[in-house]
């Protein structure tokens, strides 16, 4: 018979969170050195669903690469495809009709609300509350139905084309979107009453996992993570693109730097997206949805082009190095959660593991987007 295991008081052990773990929302592994319930050191291990999208970008023509972008972030895919078409249009000098840009903005914002809704449900479920997920998915379903009707897909959209859109929106879509806005506003009030004021919820988030603005800068964190640390940064405002300058909307910023601040930023952002959708539907101009002068086979001029857009998770960037051919010579995808997750290792040191998992939830991770 073996002797009972004796632990020294300063003994630590290694805990593998993932690669299959519900809190990571995908195949992500975090190797944690633990002192009891406290994290001494953590190392994130990526790459479990790395598919080398950047190599595919070199092997395919620009148009063939269109569907790849929505395989990055399956919750907010339109934002990423928007970045891609904008990059090509910028480099090739293609003018997009106004109606197409408005529809792009409306659909991207609908997708952002859908993404935040799913995050909200899953995040509260991480903390032990199951019902909000069901409410959130119910609301999200309305958006998915609307987007399915115009794009033909529920998650992996391939709706934008260089110079415009795949097809126009019909009255059914605009009516459904108009009906959705008051419904969603009512739901946001409901979520607020159901979750935000909950004392257990507050105790789990307030003052937990502080991420300073300086840490955000050193790691390049963007999106709601940066805005929860008092940084007023949103690509839609800082580097206006598409028709966003035409809209009147605010960027929610919280200065508490804690998990609660990141939660509140996303909840407020949904209301701001609804404002954009509302104005977009009101102003929606008529006209064509596709540029008239557009080369059939797109070739970009020689050079190095960069385009940033604000997705649901932060600043997504796409760099195209072109040698004048129909394929990109090099295509780099800068994914926001990659940078946001990077600061987790440093920020979670000394934290209780349950707090760290709640913190991970506030980073809004989508693993295929991180691994690419």
């Amino acid at each position, binding site marked *: 018979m073996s002797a009972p295991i004796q632990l020294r008081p300063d003994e630590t052990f290694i805990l593998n969170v993932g690669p299959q773990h519900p809190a990571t929302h995908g195949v992500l592994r975090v190797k944690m050195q633990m002192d009891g319930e406290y994290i001494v050191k953590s190392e994130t291990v990526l*790459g479990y669903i*790395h598919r*080398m999208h*950047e*190599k595919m970008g070199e092997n395919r023509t620009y148009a063939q690469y269109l569907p790849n972008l929505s395989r990055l972030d399956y919750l907010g895919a339109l934002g990423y495809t928007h970045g891609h078409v904008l990059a090509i249009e910028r480099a090739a000098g293609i003018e997009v009709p106004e109606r197409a840009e408005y529809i792009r903005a409306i659909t991207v914002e609908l997708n952002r609300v859908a993404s935040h809704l799913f995050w909200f449900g899953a995040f509260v479920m991480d903390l032990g509350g199951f019902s909000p997920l069901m409410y959130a998915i119910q609301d999200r379903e309305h958006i998915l139905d609307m987007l399915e009707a115009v794009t033909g897909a529920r998650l992996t959209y391939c709706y934008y084309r260089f110079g415009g859109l795949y097809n126009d929106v019909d009255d059914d879509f605009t009516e459904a979107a108009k009906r959705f806005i008051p419904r969603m506003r009512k739901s946001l009030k409901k979520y607020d009453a159901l979750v935000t004021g909950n004392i257990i919820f507050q105790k789990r988030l307030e003052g937990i996992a502080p991420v300073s603005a300086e840490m955000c800068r050193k790691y*390049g964190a963007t999106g709601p993570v940066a805005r929860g640390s008092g940084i007023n940064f949103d690509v839609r405002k800082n580097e206006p693109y598409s028709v966003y300058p035409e809209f009147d909307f605010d960027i929610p910023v919280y200065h508490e730097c804690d998990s609660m601040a990141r939660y509140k930023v996303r909840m407020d952002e949904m209301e701001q997206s609804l404002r954009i959708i509302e104005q977009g539907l009101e102003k929606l101009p008529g006209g064509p949805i596709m540029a008239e002068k557009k080369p059939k086979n797109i070739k970009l001029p020689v050079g190095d082009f960069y*385009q940033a857009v604000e997705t649901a998770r932060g600043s997504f960037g796409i760099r195209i190095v072109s040698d004048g051919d129909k394929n990109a010579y090099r295509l780099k995808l800068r994914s926001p959660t990659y940078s946001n997750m990077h*600061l987790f290792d440093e920020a979670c040191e000394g934290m209780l593991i349950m707090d760290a998992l709640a913190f991970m939830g506030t980073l809004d991770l989508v693993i295929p987007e991180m691994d690419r």
Partner: protein
Amino acid sequence: MILETTQQALQALFAGSVPADGAEAATPRGNGVITRNYKIHGYHLDAQVATDQLLAAVTILDHAGFFIESITGVDWIKENQMEVIYDFSRYDFDTCRVVIRTRVPRDQPLVPTISTIYAGANWHERETHDFFGIKFTGHPHLVPLLLPEDADFHPLLKDFKA
């Protein structure tokens, strides 16, 4: 505002050599700072530095309050060189995107790490090492990040055969 001050600070690294002003020159080109047309290229300043000037250039951006956007590489096989591209941007409304690039010989791709200045460079450099085999000297943990842990291939090299 920040655009001019950053340009001057970066320009100081190249005492004596005056690059073509605003030239939309195609790569390859000499070291120096170029202002780019933001509407076409999506960034404002484009500085190509020698590898031993890299840390000085990045320190300038760090002191000026830039955040790190990404790091990546390009394999210029015809010129037998590899390029490392660093992207920096700002959180404030003084919009200024800066691109720092440096070129290394293809058979000896050594670049100093900037993870001592920007902690967030750590993963980006590991990823660039994965894809191109570029070695970042002084990097604390240069092991595969996205590729398998025993990977000995670099898929974004132009002569890579699967």
